[in-house]
């Protein structure tokens, strides 16, 4: 176990190094960062002065080492837009995104596991067909469009919930449903197929031969084993949500999370803020991946020896 954790930790370090190289390449080499940050009407002298002031005229490797050194200290520079340290701005927005992701993931798990299990118990029934097509629909609907349609129906017409903003549960309902649609589809599909797999296994025959009650067979035996891939997928969905899927939803509902911040930073060409945002999200995602992997290894010893 210890060896596995150490190996897995090293891998996370590699991911963070990879991300920092990637962020550096994107922001310093794909375009001219000084030109990007300055307004269009800036003169050539202003441009050169700014370039020098920000250190963009130094050799690339020096810029890279400076970037890494500052990033390790959590210093991404001040946001051009808010005139505050970029990292603080990102950390301020983080709780809103975490809340949204937590609520919508819980919603997805609560809805999709029973649906998938019921569909697996009666394959090819009407419920099964509806579930399969419904989940494919959930996977196919663009979340930002679903958000706009929910606003139209439940905020503009019926006025049950608020169109946008942050604060009360009335603000939370629509974005949480919007964000949950895709995970619901995915998890229902996997719950159905993994439950079906378990129901076909020989130990089910044994359980029936022993004369166990059908409910015990299904919920105590089959469901427990079927939960492993479901939880794996659930964890993966959380990392995907954090890794950028919240951006569109937060934009639609003006939800003040890191996704909306990224868009605001991009609109204002605020390079330090973009860097800090991508970096924090990447750290969060790889930290979560690390945690999930160690959990799997703890619960499923086979993983440790791979």
């Amino acid at each position: 176990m210890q060896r596995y954790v150490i190996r897995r930790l090293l891998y996370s370090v590699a991911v963070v190094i990879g991300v920092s190289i990637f962020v550096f390449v994107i922001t310093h080499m794909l375009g001219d960062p000084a030109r990007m940050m300055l307004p269009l009407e800036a003169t050539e002298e202003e441009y050169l002065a700014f370039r020098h002031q920000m250190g963009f005229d130094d050799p690339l490797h020096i810029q890279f080492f400076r970037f890494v050194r500052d990033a390790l200290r959590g210093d991404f520079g001040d946001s051009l837009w808010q005139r505050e340290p970029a990292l603080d701005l990102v950390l301020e927005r983080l709780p809103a995104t975490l809340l949204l992701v937590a609520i919508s993931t819980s919603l997805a798990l609560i809805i999709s596991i029973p649906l998938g299990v019921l569909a697996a118990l009666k394959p090819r029934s009407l419920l099964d067909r509806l579930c399969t097509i419904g989940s494919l629909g959930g996977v196919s609907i663009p979340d930002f469009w679903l958000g706009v349609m929910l606003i139209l129906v439940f905020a503009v017409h019926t006025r049950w919930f608020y169109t946008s903003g942050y604060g009360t549960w009335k603000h939370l309902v629509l974005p949480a449903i919007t964000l949950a649609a895709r995970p619901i589809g995915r998890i229902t599909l996997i719950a159905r197929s993994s439950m079906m797999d378990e129901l076909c296994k020989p130990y089910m025959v044994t359980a029936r031969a022993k004369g166990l009650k059908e409910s015990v067979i299904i919920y105590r035996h089959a469901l427990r084993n079927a939960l492993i891939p479901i939880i794996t997928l659930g964890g993966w969905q959380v990392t995907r949500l954090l890794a950028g899927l919240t951006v569109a939803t937060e934009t639609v509902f003006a939800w003040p999370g890191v996704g909306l911040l990224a868009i605001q930073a991009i609109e204002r060409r605020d390079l330090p803020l973009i860097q800090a945002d991508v970096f924090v999200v990447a750290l969060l995602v790889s930290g979560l991946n690390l945690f999930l992997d160690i959990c799997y290894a703890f619960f499923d010893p086979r993983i440790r020896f791979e």
Partner: protein
Amino acid sequence: MQSGTFVAERGEFTTGGRWPAWRAVSSLLGQLVQDRVALAGATFLFIVLLTSLFAPYIAPHDPTVQDITHRLKPPFWLPGGSREYLLGTDQLGRDILSRMIYGGRVSLMVGFFTVLCAGGVGTTLGLIAGYYGGRIDNIIMRLVDVQTAFPGLLMALAIITMIGPSVRNIIIVLTINGWMVYARMIRGTSLAMRQSLFIDAARVVGASDRRIIFLHLLPNLASPLITLGTLELARVILAEAVLSFLGLGIQPPASSWGLMINEGHTYITLAWWLVTFPGAAIALTVLSVNLVATWLRAITDPLQRELQYGAGRRRGR
């Protein structure tokens, strides 16, 4: 009783005929007709494909021509609507239906080329990793692992900000974002296949590595690759829509379904049709692609076929 030869590795009968490709297509179509849901999806996709290909001939109006006197007209069945603008007009008086037809062009084109590029890069690297193994395999797969852990969409947004939004750049960014899936799948399958007899045989007769990889390994990976490509097409169409919705994809005055939702969603209280139709177009197209992909996986993979069509029988309760 079927007549013909039994093709063991495909597990199906083929009837005699002169053109194997045509035979494969007609047998596929025959199976498609039997699955009504998949058939509906394929038909819808075919219609979208046709309207996109022949957009200039089908679209009733020029998608970029503005006409302020006719702005925010509702669809034809509502009071105030006219048959001239079947699905109504937007805030600048442009015809929604025409913009949707042209927008479908963009979605399909971006989807198709991205799948082609990402599939090409991923498959090549996957084949190299799987066939050679050892250190090169290690390097490629670590790269795949590291990049899979990246916050993909955020990275894509950052790249687009630096290199500027255009159709070409969107395809590049989505390729960077999507090649890993192919590499991982192809590497796994070719690793297993490397040990098989026909690869040894090819090596014994002196075939070069490149010949073995592209003429022996690759054709055997075609069917999982096509299924994965179809699934990825759905993901890419959605990704393009998100980018365009966020204003970092297709730029006005050109049209794209995601962009139409971006432009229309501020008018939502005045005109629901601005966002409803393009969004429905995305959802239905992606759903159709997903249905076709599910069906493809079911008919090409015996295990999946059993799950989809035979589970009730096997459990036999």
